[in-house]
């Protein structure tokens, strides 16, 4: 076997977390290979030209959670990443009104007062409460969760760090934090805000990507997951990556190559090779084999262990826990090439919020009904949609005068029900068309003439996401963000430190802490653990040689 087949580390899957881990390792001097099954890098953070002249961010579509620490560490702006912040959004109503969200505090206050004067004070309290929780949780994103059950010395240190943070919060705020972590987004908002439209607008972030409804406990935390955004140091800000989400992966890939990293595309990892409980490399679908003492899997925990590692190398309990991991597809997408800017008669001419996220769900009950449809295996008849028109502020996305729209749809089942049976195969052409119609009709209601502007539409069901990106069941977070699958429980209790029962095999995707979103935190955290182990091996080796 030639030297060129040997690496210090192999990253299985070229998604943004895999690339992030690869960058950190390459910069630490390791010889790293990234293996990607598609002919493009980026996993679910991609820009693709699926209709001539238009760039689709056809999976993930906004940039907010990306950790600023990672952006700085890896010099991503230097490698071409540019994030353009947007400043608001809106929810339209059936009867021609809307609620506009502005990141400018005074403008937002005026807008809330227009709809519901009593809620101005409530919103103020709400935003303070949420920001407080944000400040508490944000630092935890880039830390490895401690093992509370069998703590090693560093886990003890980490547990002490956590206890100290709780201590600093004080009893009242600790109670509030517990409530926030366990409440439903609906119940939580009910405690602050009266106006149903404002509540519906705010609640959307609590359900995106999860198989839960607005009244399911635990969704208040998911809300936070979407509030921890940060663009150019502005906490809570959201933005578009110039050139689509592929720009994030593109910058990571350039940073990786600049650090000497190598990439193989067009053939995915077929088998992760294990000998005597240690990883030895990967075998690709095309028959090639690469060797390395470290394999970092960017695939989700189910795909990694149920699909690519032979069961004989894994303890039964671990396998059982992996099978039990909940990873439910609940969302779809429609990416649309538009002939012109759609009209929203309710909105003032050229309103700035049209450049942000647009919605049509008017009440929590409507959102809950959308969830109920999903839970019996139907796509929502009246879905929650998160529409964005990035071409309004990023002209690279569509030809002049034309526009690109991304529509995220909650909820869509992975295995639709038909005649009492649930099966992914039920997503046939007719089902896809009916699903798209439900979404387009809903948009048409607030934007008359919308359907006539559609030049091309790409319909993405959970099954498409699974097939193309490799996300099990098309779950965008690589696993539900419920409490039993967060922190030290993510992905499997006892294995939250990115290590696995196979020595040298690590999980770097968002199945690991702190979870999904284009955040790059799992990748960065895992790389830190890999490098820590590598240094320890180095030390052992040196000590051995010295002896």
């Amino acid at each position: 076997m030639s030297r060129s087949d040997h690496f210090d580390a192999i990253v299985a899957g070229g998604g943004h977390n895999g690339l992030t881990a690869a960058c950190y390792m390459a910069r630490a001097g390791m010889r790293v290979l990234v293996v990607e099954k598609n002919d493009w890098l980026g996993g679910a953070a991609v820009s693709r030209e699926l209709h001539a002249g238009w760039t689709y961010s056809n999976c993930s579509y906004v940039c907010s959670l990306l950790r600023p620490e990672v952006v700085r560490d890896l010099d991503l702006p230097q490698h071409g990443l540019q994030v353009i912040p947007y400043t608001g959004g809106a929810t339209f109503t059936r009867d021609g009104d809307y609620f506009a969200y502005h990141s400018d505090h005074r403008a937002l206050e005026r807008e809330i007062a227009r709809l519901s004067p009593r809620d101005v004070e409530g919103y103020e309290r709400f935003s303070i409460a949420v920001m407080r929780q944000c400040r508490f949780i944000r630092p935890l994103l880039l830390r490895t969760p401690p093992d509370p059950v069998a703590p090693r010395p560093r886990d003890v240190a980490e547990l002490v760090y956590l206890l100290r943070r709780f201590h600093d919060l004080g009893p009242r705020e600790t109670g509030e934090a517990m409530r926030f972590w366990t409440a439903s987004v609906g119940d939580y908002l009910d405690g602050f805000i009266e106006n149903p439209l404002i509540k519906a607008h705010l609640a959307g972030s609590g359900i995106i990507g999860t198989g839960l409804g607005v009244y399911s406990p635990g969704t208040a935390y998911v809300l936070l997951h979407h509030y921890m955004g940060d663009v150019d140091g502005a906490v809570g800000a959201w933005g578009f990556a110039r050139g689509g989400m592929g720009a994030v992966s593109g910058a990571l890939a350039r940073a990786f190559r600049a650090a000497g990293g190598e990439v193989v595309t067009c053939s995915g990892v077929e088998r992760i090779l294990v000998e005597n409980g240690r990883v030895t490399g990967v075998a690709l679908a095309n028959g090639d084999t690469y060797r390395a003492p470290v394999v970092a899997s960017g695939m989700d925990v189910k795909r990694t262990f149920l699909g690519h590692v032979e069961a004989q190398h894994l303890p039964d309990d671990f396998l059982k826990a992996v099978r039990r991991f909940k990873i439910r597809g609940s969302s779809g997408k429609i990416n649309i090439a538009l002939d012109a800017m759609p009209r929203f008669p309710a909105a003032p001419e050229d309103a700035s919020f049209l450049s942000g996220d647009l919605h049509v769900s008017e009440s929590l009950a409507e959102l809950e009904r959308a969830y109920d449809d999903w839970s019996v295996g139907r796509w929502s008849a009246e879905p929650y949609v998160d529409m964005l028109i990035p071409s309004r502020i990023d002209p690279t996305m569509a030809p002049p005068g034309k526009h690109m729209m991304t529509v995220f749809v909650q909820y869509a089942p992975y295995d639709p029900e038909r005649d009492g049976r649930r099966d992914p195969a039920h997503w046939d052409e007719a089902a896809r068309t009916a699903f798209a119609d439900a979404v387009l009709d809903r948009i048409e209601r607030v934007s008359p003439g919308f359907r006539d502007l559609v030049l091309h539409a790409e319909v993405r069901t959970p099954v498409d996401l699974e097939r193309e990106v490799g996300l099990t069941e098309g779950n965008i977070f690589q696993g539900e963000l419920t409490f039993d699958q967060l922190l030290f429980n993510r992905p499997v209790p006892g294995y939250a430190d990115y290590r696995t029962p196979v020595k040298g095999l690590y999980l770097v995707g968002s199945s690991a802490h702190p979870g999904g979103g284009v955040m790059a935190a799992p990748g960065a955290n895992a790389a830190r653990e890999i490098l820590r182990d590598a240094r320890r091996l180095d030390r052992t080796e040196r000590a051995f040689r010295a002896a």
Partner: protein
Amino acid sequence: MAFDHNRRPRAVVIGAGVNGLAAAATLAARGVDVTVVERGRGPGGMMTGAGQGELGHFVWNLHPAALAELGLGAADLGLGAEVATVLLAADGRHVVIEGEAISFADGTPHPDAAAYRALRARLARFAAVLAPLATAAPPRLGSGMLNRAGLSDLAQLARTGLGLRRLPRDARREFLRVLLSNAADLVRDELPDGPLAASLVFDAILGGRAAPGAPGTVLALLWRHAGGGRRRPAGGMAALARRIAGAAEARGVTIRYDATAAGIEVEGDRVRGLRLGSGEVIAAEMVLSSLGAMPTLRLAGPAHFDAEACRRIRGLRCEGTTARLDLRLAEMPRIEGLDGRLAGARLLLAPSVAAIEAACRPVKYGAIPASPVAEVLIEPGDGGAEGPAHLSALVQHVPYAPECGWTEAAREALAAAVIGALGTHMPGLPGLVTESRLATPRDIETMTGAPGGHWHHAELAADQMLTLRPVNGMARYASSLPGLWFCGAGAHPGGDITGLPGRNAALAAAADLGQGVTR
């Protein structure tokens, strides 16, 4: 405050439910002069609909610590043997659970019996870890821990931690994983969906609004499984309530029935007594209220609470979702293969977890469930006024305020849905009904004063439990008004007939009286 040592300190307890009585007995045993005021005609609160009959069927976690304060032993309660549970199956293959034995109605063993027993055993082990948390006020958190009073909390947490340490490592991991997870996933990970799986999930949701898939339902399930098996008191709940009231009186507690609390007297920001509907004022150093948090706040007047406290109490979720349907029957109904085992058994009308999930949905939109799930008890009558047989059903996921209002038609629709669903297993049941009486959550509220008619006075969800029960900042039974205490199911550890909130609250209140108390 200084006490007149010649006079015993005095306390008034509002409500003669199990918690009010436990609180009163606990205080009386510590030398406090206690009066219980009860607006109903008899004791029992939610057990008996304030003396008007009964609401619950079984006793399953009445706590020995509360009984000890009442001077009662388990033997004094007249509780029968653990009742058998019969799971009515859609396909007619009903399942019978009698202790550890699980079989089909025809006697053939159930294929999932071992998995079910293993899961139950696991739940019982986990419940035992949580048990120490139920018998004291929830621990202070954050910086509150690091003072002298906080040390006892640390000890309590340490006991819980010790219980956890005693579990094997894998069980500890499992405990921390499932604690805040949902009952549906937990059960379905171990058992195929069917009546057996549904029976465990039913335990998690009985009395609450949460759907089986809602995170946090496992916590509710664990509280339930901390007790022993389900037992039926001889003479029903009313007899049990009388026994408990008698025990409290034997401790020297005065109970006044038909006495409505009309207002809490406050002087100089401290409770001075309780004003009754008649205008009479009972002077007392402290008032312990077993009402819900909101009715208690109203009695004292919101002016004595800060805006944040009022908001939190107002925001409590306490709309009940459990109704009770009572049917008088012309004769004992029959179920193929189960005759002779029906009387006194706990029948579960919940064929699958999926069926429970479906039954949970309508309530969210204020609709009456078309296929409700229920716990049913059939008892032969005494031949007298009760008639030849009596069936009662605790029906889950009934709206407190249906969209259409509780019209006669709505009430009939609910009764018909329950009778119809039972009728598929008991042919001829509709023809046997001679009289039907429905208590909706709203009726239960009217009867008992429980906010929203809620089984637990407030939803037992993770964000309304432990240090958050009834609300953040008042979880240690003391309200923010000195001398006013929460001692009902709305306080930690919550509802069901445990007696613990009352007993714990009284201990906290007695400690507050300090040296004024003679033992």
